[in-house]
């Protein structure tokens, strides 16, 4: 496994109309007189195989935008981003789950979307049910799930995709201590195998268990990059 992430001058731009609503470039052109906000700007970052990197910074610093850009959910408007390796992600509290469907039905849907082989097979679904630790709740509508249960199922799916790069955005903080241990174990094994773990959040104790390097983001750019302890100190000053 030779996972790597290389960002050179990456920028992601959000366009707003006069009512401060987010709009697409086509609509922005038609409406004119809008404004733009850069979620990331001139961002340079290089992450190599085996690294665990925590993204620190205040809300709005660009942590989520960076993770979504690496996951190819968002696309750079400028710069160059190279991602080598299969990406598994858990990027929102909903974890990509549809509330009206059961955990099992969501598992089939997401497994299909992320390209798992035989997404509807009993073997895979039994494995996901066991791995998520949801028990009977696996067959209940996701609308009845707590945030932690969302994250458990989302993580089980992301992990089952056998990613080379694992992206975690705050949602892992909704998990109980038992499942945090599971995440720490998975992250450790992935890094040992040459993968990358990239996690964002505000729970520094949890992030430190997953990552030994940290990057401090501010206004969409890298302000500090180094060992977790060093960058944590810099983050306290922001």
């Amino acid at each position, binding site marked *: 496994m030779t996972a790597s992430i290389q960002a050179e001058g990456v920028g*992601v731009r*959000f*366009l707003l109309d006069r009512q401060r609503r*987010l*709009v*697409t*470039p*086509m*609509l922005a052109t038609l409406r004119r007189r809008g404004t733009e906000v850069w979620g990331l700007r001139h961002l340079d970052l290089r992450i190599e195989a085996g690294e665990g990197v925590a993204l620190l910074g205040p809300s709005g610093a660009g942590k989520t935008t960076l993770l*979504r850009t690496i*996951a*190819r*959910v*968002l*696309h*750079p*408007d*400028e*710069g*160059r*981003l*190279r*991602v080598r390796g299969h*990406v598994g*992600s*858990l*990027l*929102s509290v*909903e*974890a*990509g*789950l*549809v509330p*009206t*469907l059961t955990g099992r*039905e969501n598992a*089939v*849907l*997401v497994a*299909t*979307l*992320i*390209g798992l082989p035989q*997404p509807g097979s009993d073997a895979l679904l039994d494995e996901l049910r066991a791995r998520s630790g949801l028990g009977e709740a696996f067959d209940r509508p996701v609308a009845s799930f707590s945030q932690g249960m969302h994250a458990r199922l*989302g993580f089980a799916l992301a992990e089952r995709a056998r990613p080379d790069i694992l992206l975690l955005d705050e949602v892992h903080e909704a998990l109980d201590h038992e499942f945090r241990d599971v995440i720490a174990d998975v992250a450790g094994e992935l890094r040992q195998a040459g993968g990358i773990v990239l996690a964002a959040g505000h729970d520094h104790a949890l992030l430190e268990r997953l990552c030994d390097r940290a990057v401090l983001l501010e206004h969409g750019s890298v302000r500090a990059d180094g060992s977790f302890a060093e960058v944590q100190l810099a983050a306290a000053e922001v």
Partner: protein
Amino acid sequence: MRRVSKPFPHRDSSRDLARSLAVLRALTVSDLRARYGRGPARLLKWLLDPFAVVGVYLLLVTFLLEREGPAPGLSLACAVVPFQLLMLAILNAIGAVNRRKAILLNMEFRRGLLPLASVGTESVAFGASLVLLALMMVIYGVAPTIAILWLPLVIATTIVLAVACAYPASLFGVWFPDLRVFAASFVRTMFFLAPGLVALNEVSGRAGDLVRLNPLTGIFESYRDTLLYGQRPAAWQVLYPLAFSLVLLLLAGPLYRREQRHFAKVVE
């Protein structure tokens, strides 16, 4: 700038086609589960839904209202049933991107399939509506003729038009999420600007020529020809909606492809 997304990658690869079909099926099935629920009752709900939407109206026309023309209830059903597919597909497509927000913000997948999934869902619902057409034929004693063999082509044309409308509808839903009601009114207006309530041969003069510009006219009349008049649909009734669909897809397809890269920025 380097483009990292591949919204429609390797379209010629059979493996990717199989993957796209699997994703399309998964999206459609999830939509259908959310709509019809689970267990044996879902079949009943699927069958009864069209009656709840238009069946009662058709029975009212058939048994209570005095209307001229051959089998007025069946004639009306030949317009209302395909129109339901088009309208529901458009309304479904308008909300498709926002409804998939959780998925859209969490993972990369082929967003070009979202409007297709909307049509897939409504096409399954449309299957139950065909029972209404059969029921109307029974009520009016209209026996099927050899012309019914054209029905699959007519249905396929309806679905192609629904697909062509679904792409601009999805963009409309992203651009103007507050104008969903306006869009529904616009689509309903298109029904009244076509021979929906009365057949084309009952629309005289210049109006008769003008309504032919509406692609719904060909669709409605081809159902009537196939099921009511027992004759082969005229070529224009199928070809004009298909040509209209092609033009719409050529215009909206590239636009959708360009805009879908930004969906995750605007759905939050």
